[in-house]
């Protein structure tokens, strides 16, 4: 057979990459790698906040402790919302790859609703705590708590805005390879936020009520 047509040439090159030959990696792999580096730097920034929390969590200055403030029931609902939104985000990415735009919109909408529910619970928890006089200025423990959990919440809020933007791109441009690569980055971001939440959930809440 002859491998002369233009699209065929690209495939041949990528076949070589797949079997360990020479040639540049597919754009998708390169984009995911670059975004992965960004996510790791973001996780390193969070590690600073985790370290600050670990150091300061005992310094309650006579104020309320985690045991008095945290409610495991709402925390569990919050965690479930974020976990299921990660799942629906993965299914949205999958539907996109299979060019099923109807399913993509359904799963993207579910992801948004679950993420928004998470933010709603978190913000109402913050408002409740500030109302009880347990705001970020009460003690070093609460400063570290609001910084760490608030930074995670700020990331989730940014992710929600990004998700709206992605849905608008799919609406305007369709599920083209470029849009799918952007959505791949979004889904990596969203899954990474869930990983950070596992750390917050364990270190701040579960160990805080013990």
């Amino acid at each position, binding site marked *: 057979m002859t491998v002369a047509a233009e699209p065929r040439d690209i495939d041949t090159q990528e076949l070589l990459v797949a079997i360990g030959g020479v040639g540049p990696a597919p754009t998708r792999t390169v984009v995911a790698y670059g975004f992965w580096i960004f996510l790791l730097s973001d996780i390193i920034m969070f590690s600073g906040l985790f*370290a600050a929390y670990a150091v300061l969590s005992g310094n309650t200055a006579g104020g309320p402790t985690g045991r008095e403030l945290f409610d495991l029931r709402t925390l569990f609902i919050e965690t479930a919302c974020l976990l299921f939104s*990660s799942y629906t985000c993965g299914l949205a990415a999958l539907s996109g790859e299979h060019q099923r735009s109807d399913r993509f919109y359904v799963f993207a909408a579910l992801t948004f609703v679950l993420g928004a529910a998470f933010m709603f619970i978190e913000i109402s928890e913050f408002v409740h705590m500030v109302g009880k006089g347990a705001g970020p200025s009460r003690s070093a423990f609460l400063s570290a708590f609001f910084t760490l959990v608030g930074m995670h919440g700020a990331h989730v809020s940014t992710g929600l805005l990004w998700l709206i933007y992605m849905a608008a791109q799919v609406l305007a441009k369709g599920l083209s390879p470029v849009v799918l690569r952007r959505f791949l980055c979004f889904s990596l971001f969203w899954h990474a936020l869930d*990983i950070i939440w596992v750390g917050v*959930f364990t270190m701040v809440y579960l160990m805080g009520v013990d």
Partner: protein
Amino acid sequence: MDGDDRIFHERSPGVEHQESRADFLSYTAGLGLAVLLTIGSVVVAQTDLLWPPGIPVGLVVLAFAQIGVHLVFFLHLGTGTDNTNNIIALAFGLLIVFLVITGSCWIMVNLNDNMMAMPGR
């Protein structure tokens, strides 16, 4: 001709013909494991199932297991050839995270231990 065409399209991880390794089953298995581990860590924290002084260690182990589940099933970090760089980057990131957290705790505990007693306390 047709046979060759199919081989090219099924094997190449190309931009347009991406044969996705991520499938529905992988996400569902990941969700199931993550839910189990989350419930497990709540149970460990709330009951005396574990020897009480060992609870923090148990929670950390469960958290690391869940992070592993997320990395493999949701972020699809595997042993594939195009994943080598991602794994190396992750290992470096984990090293920095470990240094920042344990280093900070080590230094601050040491400072607290060597702090002179405050007058009036």
